[in-house]
């Protein structure tokens, strides 16, 4: 017997679904609509006047003669966002996989504690986390001090407000998302498979590359997506650790609703970002969601 009949289920689910639909679904649809409107003379939009300027101005700009000229400023920001996200994903994988493997090899009780330790930073304020890195990375900060005291580096470290600082911060922020899914797939892995590999003459490197890594692939893919996608939409880290000089997509979007006051362009950028994220999720769910079942 079901806990509740179908009829009652509908009413149980309705409040949450209607709430999210009204306050998130509708706004997203409206955003898509605003993105094809004409920009108002002093900010805002001209409702009812359609224009694809927002999408055109992503790559082109009009010069004084009203000719379209290629403008790569925005494209650069997109490329930078992709580049930083890719770099972050790779760094997170390099750090995350061994950690997940380490945790999976612990006794059951300790695993939970480690997993908890991995997740704690995720729940802390993102400003605070990035601020902590400012303390560490700035000139005269802790790392600078340490390097100077052991004589490796004298003078300023000059790393804060560079893309390096941004990628350190991004990796820090999204690292837990890499560890958790990889851990989940390693935890399920039958250790006898690895023993069988040893038994059949595989050394540790071979056991790792031929057995463990392939079986952890679904987790690695999930982790990569869970790191890459939120990274693409990062706002705070480039703002604080990049000092506002190294904008990513989110900062560009945000600025259209601040100083730039170009809502249609901001909406268009938002729509593109959203589309990329949803597309990535769609591809993932179609291609990889079934993998763990097939593998078992």
């Amino acid at each position, binding site marked *: 017997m079901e806990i509740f009949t179908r009829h009652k289920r509908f009413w149980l689910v309705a409040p949450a679904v209607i709430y999210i639909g009204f306050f998130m679904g509708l706004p997203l649809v409206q955003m898509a609509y605003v993105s094809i409107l004409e920009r108002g003379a002093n900010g805002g939009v001209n409702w009812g006047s359609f224009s694809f300027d927002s999408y055109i101005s992503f790559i082109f700009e009009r010069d004084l003669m009203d000719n379209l000229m290629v403008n790569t400023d925005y494209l650069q920001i997109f490329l930078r966002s992709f580049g930083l996200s890719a770099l972050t994903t790779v760094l997170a994988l390099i750090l995350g996989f061994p950690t997940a493997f380490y945790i999976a090899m612990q006794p059951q009780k300790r695993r939970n504690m480690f997993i908890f*330790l991995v997740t704690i930073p995720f729940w802390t*304020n*993102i400003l605070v986390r990035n601020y902590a890195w400012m303390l560490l990375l700035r000139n005269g900060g802790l790392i600078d001090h340490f390097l100077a005291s052991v004589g490796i580096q004298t003078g300023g470290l000059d790393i804060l407000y560079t893309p390096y600082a941004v990628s350190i911060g991004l990796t820090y922020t999204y690292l837990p998302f890499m560890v958790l899914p990889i851990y989940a797939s390693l935890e399920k892995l039958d250790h006898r498979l690895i023993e069988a590999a040893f038994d059949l003459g595989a050394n540790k490197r071979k056991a790792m590359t031929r057995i463990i890594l392939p079986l952890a692939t679904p987790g690695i893919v999930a982790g990569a997506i869970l790191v890459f996608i939120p990274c693409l939409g990062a706002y705070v880290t480039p703002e604080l650790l990049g000092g506002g000089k190294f904008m990513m997509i989110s900062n560009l979007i945000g600025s259209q609703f601040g100083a730039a006051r170009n809502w249609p362009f901001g909406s268009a950028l938002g729509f593109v970002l959203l589309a990329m994220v949803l597309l990535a999720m769609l591809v993932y769910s179609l291609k990889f969601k079934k993998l763990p079942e097939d593998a078992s």
Partner: protein
Amino acid sequence: MKIDRANPLWRFHGITPMAIFFFAYLYLPIIVLLVLSFNENRLATIWTGFSTKWYSVVLGNDDMLRSAKNSLIIALSSTIIATIAATLAAMGMARGRFRGEGGVAAMLTLPLLVPEIVTAIATLLFFIVIGVKLGLLSIIIAHTVFCIPFAYLPIRARLDGMDPALIEAANDLYANEWQAFKRITFPLLWPGILSGAMLSFIISLDDFVISYFVGGAGSTTLPIYIFGMIRIGITPEVNAISALMLIISIVFVSISFLIDRVRY
């Protein structure tokens, strides 16, 4: 995996050092921040002695307290609304299939998928168009949206882990649907509900991006206030207030985690 770690067969090169580096990387900034918040020096990064004076300075700051109060009002309101909606939704979704189930599930996780900045600007535009004044109310509405999935997931997990025969047993022993819910389902569910509520609470308390865009004058939240301070510069006050935020979050997550481990 279930292995004997004393067995050298299971020693893979580089795994342990990498894991140690990982946890150092994860916790070094947090520990440094906590330590420096007790530094008496005005120059925020050089240790000269222990002091709690920056905490007193921060806790005596009226602007800070006002923003903390705003944050609490927002977090409490959105947590309550989100938790109720999420509890109902979880009970509607648990077990038994219905048409449109996939769509409902997608809707419930949508707030987790949409990039924060997109949520922020879309909601901002929406509020401007439908005429919601930007302030505490607009932030509460927006926070509730992304709090729902955070509350939903642990509650749903609890329900899925519950033996469906328990409800049948209650019905079998003459409890009608409402009695079965009151006496069996709810008491078994409450750790999940409480855990979900606490997660919503921290997520709301910590949110910066969405509050920053959909808030207005007079609705400055603690993270927005901290952001303003960081913009001005690294100061011992920021250290202290950041450390406070950090501690609150960690305490709440730990409690949520412990509650969720309650098993009968």
